[in-house]
């Protein structure tokens, strides 16, 4: 490994950071869609209202973190972008369809409901044949498919299956991602998003019954995170030997694994005992440890065994400009983003003062 990190490593670190924020924020928006699909019991309608209310003002801003990661990737590591988009054309396309359908069905459904409420408040007749349940299903299913495909993509990048020689992708267009390991990571991603959403949602309502609904969902999906995480670790030894070896064979890697495991156990115990705020912090810490561990294991690869950070890096002039823009952007956007969350999530983020 190189000594001090150079410009390419710093930009790669920022991409990982953008991915972390995306998972922590947008991941929970997708997870909310999963709980919309599994809304049930006597409080079904209220569960869905809490979910829609929680996602509404923030999902578009949260979604931009993915754009940030993609733009940074093609600007700073153009070859990695080119190889990933070529080899993983199919799962990326499916993910895109999911992104389009999730976003549009969410707003269509919301506007549809507003129009209906307006009509009823004006004393109109009962529900007319609006888009209705079809949008409910579209929203929920696309919230389910998109995280799985994102996980499949990240999982495949960790395996040496893609292959790249002399400017040509050698692993084929289907075989690399049609393997058990990428799909395990796919379902792990889904479980993680659902888990984060359930834990966040306990703070989006003051209704103790609803909180317990989301608590149960959090415990269930948290167990799934543990199981799928364990399975991914086992499968990863064979499927992604280099990443796995780097993660489990070095002290720093082992430390991240331990932090991740302890955070996960902590989050589950805290959730079970209804310490909502602490459970949320522990779940966030689990997620960060997981992604940091993955990034650490991947180093120095962007596509395992095929494209590395130094090989794919754009000229220094580009990297410097990109970092300058990021610095300026941080200066402008962090206050704006903080303002957004302050306006809408004050009570959620600082429940003591509500």
């Amino acid at each position: 490994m190189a000594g001090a990190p150079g410009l390419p490593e710093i930009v790669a670190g920022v991409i990982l950071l953008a991915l972390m924020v995306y998972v922590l924020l947008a991941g929970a928006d997708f997870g909310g869609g999963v709980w919309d699909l599994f809304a049930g019991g006597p409080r079904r309608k209220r569960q869905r209202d809490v979910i829609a209310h929680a996602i509404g003002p923030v999902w578009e801003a949260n979604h931009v973190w993915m754009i940030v990661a993609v733009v940074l990737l093609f600007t700073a590591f153009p070859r990695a972008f080119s190889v990933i988009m070529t080899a993983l054309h199919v799962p990326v396309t499916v993910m895109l369809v999911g992104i389009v359908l999730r976003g549009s069905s969410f707003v269509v459904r919301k506007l549809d409901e507003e129009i209906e409420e307006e009509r009823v408040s004006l004393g109109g007749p009962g529900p007319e044949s609006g888009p209705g349940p079809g949008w409910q299903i579209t929203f929920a299913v696309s919230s389910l498919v998109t995280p799985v495909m994102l996980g499949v993509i990240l999982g495949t990048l960790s395996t040496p299956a893609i292959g790249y020689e002399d400017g040509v992708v050698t692993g084929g267009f289907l075989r690399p991602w049609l393997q058990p390991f990428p799909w395990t990571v796919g379902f792990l991603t889904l479980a993680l998003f659902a888990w984060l959403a359930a834990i966040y949602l306990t703070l989006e309502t003051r209704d103790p019954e609803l909180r317990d609904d989301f608590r149960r969902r959090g415990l269930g999906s948290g167990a799934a995170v543990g199981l799928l995480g364990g399975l991914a670790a086992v499968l990863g030894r064979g499927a992604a030997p280099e990443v796995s070896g780097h993660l489990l064979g070095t002290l720093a890697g082992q430390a991240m694994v331990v932090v991740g495991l302890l955070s996960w156990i902590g989050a589950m115990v805290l959730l079970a005992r209804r310490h909502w705020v602490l459970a949320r912090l522990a779940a966030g810490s689990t997620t960060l440890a997981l992604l940091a561990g993955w990034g650490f294991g991947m180093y120095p690869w962007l596509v395992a065994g095929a494209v590395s950070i130094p090989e794919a890096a754009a000229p220094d002039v580009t990297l410097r400009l990109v970092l300058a823009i990021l610095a300026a952007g941080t200066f402008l956007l962090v206050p704006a983003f903080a303002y957004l969350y302050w306006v809408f999530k004050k009570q959620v983020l600082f429940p003591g003062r509500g």
Partner: protein
Amino acid sequence: MSDLLAARSQMALSLAFHIVFAAIGIGLPVLMVLAEAAWLRTGKDVYRRLTRAWSKGLALLFAVGAVSGTVLSFELGLLWPRFMEVAGPVIGMPFSLEGLAFFTEAIFLGIYLYGWDRISRGAHLAAGIVVALSGAASALFVLSVNGWMNSPTGFLPGEGAPVIDPVAAMTNPFWIANTIHMVLAAYIVTGFGAAALHALKLLKDPKSELHRAALRLAVGLGALTALLQPLSGDITARMVAQEQPAKLAAMEAHFETGPCAPLNLGGLPNEETGEVRWALQVPCGLSLLVAKDPDAVITGLNDIPRDEWPPVAPVHIAFQVMVGIGMLLVALGLWGGWRIVRGEPLVEPRWMLWAFLAAGPLAVVAMQAGWVVTEVGRQPWIIYGHMRTADAVTPMPGLVVPFTLFTLLYLFLTVVVVLLMLRLARSVDAREARIQAEAERPSETGATSS
């Protein structure tokens, strides 16, 4: 269908779909802010109701724009990986800045749409202004990328790694001219598009206070920008003449280099024979327009290698369509602007409402035609003079499948959005009818008691 054609079709479809929502995302916040400012200034409740109605529409249209824009950022790599491998480091800077602008727009739109009861009126209006400004800023940065594809400065490919200068690439010759042309187009499309929707409603109920107020603001924006657009178009066309003679020759169906070049109005060019049939020719018109000199020599397609010609007929026809519609909108803008300045209603004579109804879709057609001119006119290049589109396409086979998939998806979304906007308008009408009824009742009781 070959993979290259499928890739080009998918890209064209995705751009054509996205540009409508992107344009509305730039223009509608301006209308919304104007309406809200009118409410704050005059205190007339109709402007508050109009702002809310428009912002509900914007919530839907912006979201579709955001997700279809995401698709495009991935499609650059899914369809043109070899282009992005070369272009990424060169034009990543404007793309990154566009990301920031989009981020700002998404954040403040969230605050605007959901923050009516949570922040002060001034802060709310300010959030709307930030949305409008960041929308225009997005256009500025995306148009820089497109300008670079057409005039690739700051990029010297050679043996080994190309020498690049991202700042020179970003500040390419087309950048500012194209941005102004597109931002004006966005305001025209939004202005006349909104005017069309409200004209449709006014045809049924010419007295509606809300639709009348909406029509004035929408036509005002559309008229002002439609009148400015020919100036911007003239600057842009002369820049094309300088940077991309092949594109200009295709736009004008100009086959023979020479002085006193005629201007072909309409007509159908034949690439094989180099003739233009059924065109109205203005002698020396092209030389006059491009160089302000009837004797100026204008490069014709005959001086351009045959394998570097863009498809002539589509580019020429699209250009005629854009300019033709542009002229109609100028005329309509003059009439509408005159009535607004004189404080006369726009709902009379009634046939003018039909004109506004037609102008909305026509403005969209003109904008799409303009993009056909730019993008088809750039062919066969993806980076003008450096990389051919055919060399940039992905090796992935079966591209007709994703093309079909996205065609169906976007057709479906178009239908959904149109139906929902009409339903939203109906719902707004129902509320307006209630308000009107309530407004009439007290005055009646007042009349009887006096």
